[in-house]
């Protein structure tokens, strides 16, 4: 490692924690005070350097804390790295870049065993292959995201604004008319007629080749839509990087734990269920019970009013909660389906074994599902 300065934490420029900017204009102040810095894919890395760790033998706790954000491939203390008195410096390598980004964002400036952590990326530890892979993944991600957006928006436009799209396609053949429409749409979507925007309104024609028009015929129509949905879209996309992969890892681990030995799971106490249970509706519950009973062909006639003879603990049913996301709904439905199967099995089992029907609700199954719901509720 080349040493370029005697100051602490300044073996490399990008390790130095810059001063927070305090001269920002009001309209662009963020929620947290931040320094003026640009993050590119070169700077980001799966390697994180953590400075300011109190030297009280807490390496294990540190690694456990960071492991919350993703799998860690390796970690070690950097003894030669210049550090403040009574602090240590650690290097942690995550399995993937996204975990490292999340960990850095969450753990930077956090208090840890009485010290303030300073977390930064350490790309100088990467091998050539790791750097190459990082760049390729970034490129693939951008291409995939923009292609998905194009595909989705084109589909949407074809369905909702068929006429407009056709008109616009005719205009494509002549650049001038297309350009006029673009400028017009830009002005309307901007919402005000601001003359002082040389970069947006002047639009010199030389920058607008026909190739560009072909690939970006969407944006003109998109602009009016997206500026309205701008904030929501930002929320989904902005959070995409941070929350989505986190959710995905949790879904995967829970799916595995619930799906496999469901039938053998011990019945845990019901207090947990009471605490975490999401809301249910009476109608849904009664309907579900009716359907379950019908399927089993129970010897007890189910009363439409719901006066069934029941023995054993009666616990609330699993509610159908819409996650507002296709993949999550699919996963939730899968888990619900599996739980239904296990419940059916146990019902049959109790009927043959004990001679009467016990209404079991699988508490552990419910637990996992509600913890699952709990994690996903933001």
């Amino acid at each position, binding site marked *: 490692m080349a040493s370029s300065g005697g100051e602490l934490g300044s073996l490399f420029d990008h390790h130095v924690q810059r001063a927070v900017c305090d001269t920002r204009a009001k*309209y*662009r102040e963020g929620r947290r005070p931040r320094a*003026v810095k*640009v993050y590119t894919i070169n700077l980001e890395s799966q390697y994180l350097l953590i400075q300011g760790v109190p030297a009280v033998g807490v390496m294990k706790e540190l690694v456990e804390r960071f492991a919350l954000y993703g799998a860690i491939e390796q970690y070690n203390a950097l003894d030669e790295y210049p550090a403040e008195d009574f602090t240590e410096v650690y290097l942690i390598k995550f399995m993937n870049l996204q975990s490292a980004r999340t960990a850095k964002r969450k753990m930077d400036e956090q208090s840890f065993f009485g010290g303030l952590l300073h977390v930064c990326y350490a790309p100088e530890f990467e091998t*050539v292959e790791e*750097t190459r892979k990082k760049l390729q993944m970034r490129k693939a991600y*951008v291409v995939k995201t923009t292609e998905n957006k194009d595909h989705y928006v084109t589909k949407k436009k074809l369905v909702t604004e068929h006429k407009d799209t056709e008109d616009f396609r005719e205009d494509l053949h002549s650049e001038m008319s297309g350009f006029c429409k673009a400028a017009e749409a830009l002005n309307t979507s901007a919402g005000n007629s601001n003359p*002082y925007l040389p*970069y947006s309104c002047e639009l010199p024609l030389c920058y607008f080749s026909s190739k*560009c028009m072909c690939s970006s015929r969407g944006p003109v129509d998109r602009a009016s839509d997206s500026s309205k949905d701008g904030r929501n879209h930002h929320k989904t996309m902005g959070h995409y990087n941070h929350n989505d992969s986190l959710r995905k890892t949790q879904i995967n681990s829970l799916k595995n734990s619930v799906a496999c030995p469901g039938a053998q799971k011990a019945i845990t106490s019901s207090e947990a269920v009471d605490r975490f249970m999401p809301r249910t509706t009476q109608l849904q519950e009664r309907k579900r019970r009716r359907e379950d009973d019908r399927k089993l062909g129970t010897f007890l006639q189910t009363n439409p009013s719901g006066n069934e003879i029941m023995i054993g603990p009666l616990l609330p049913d699993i509610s159908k909660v819409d996650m507002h996301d296709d993949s999550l709904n699919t996963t939730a439905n899968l888990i619900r389906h599996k739980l239904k199967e296990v419940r059916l099995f146990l019902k049959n089992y109790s009927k043959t074994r004990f001679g009467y029907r016990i209404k079991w609700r699988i508490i552990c199954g419910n637990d996992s599902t509600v913890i699952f719901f709990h994690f996903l509720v933001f």
Partner: protein
Amino acid sequence: MAQKPKVDPHVGRLGYLQALVTEFQETQSQDAKEQVLANLANFAYDPSNYEYLRQLQVLDLFLDSLSEENETLVEFAIGGLCNLCPDRANKEHILHAGGVPLIINCLSSPNEETVLSAITTLMHLSPPGRSFLPELTATPVVQCMLRFSLSASARLRNLAQIFLEDFCSPRQVAEARSRQAHSALGIPLPRSVAPRQR
């Protein structure tokens, strides 16, 4: 990273970006220019903003800022370009706007981050299918990369090596290497790095 905008909700992202561009145009303060440019460059990391950035011609703003005297502005501008150039539409725009010579100029910068961003941008600008743009693999550029590949900085070394292996043909590299012995070294290494000739 990206700041949360504190503007009227219905103005939205486009309005916020527009306000940033306006401020960059009008302000006299170098600090404010740097802050706004850094803000825009960080927005350029997220593909969902590319439509707005193209509409507001932020790409041309970045390209113009590459010729600024203020090194920080150059660093942020090339960082912004590095962030958004993997996108096909953005790439075409940069190529049509004649951005390649400007980016190659950035290789001469004494600022290491600028050089790294410039190398990455050039790599992303290379068309797919390994049909290299002639400007990108001109002899001076390849020679520059050869020198970078001997640098003490691991990041610079790695990037230069990837450029030489993936974006240049072996013939070009051999030719540049043989010429290096004769021609004067035109492009200095970044200041923070001490070149080590082996």
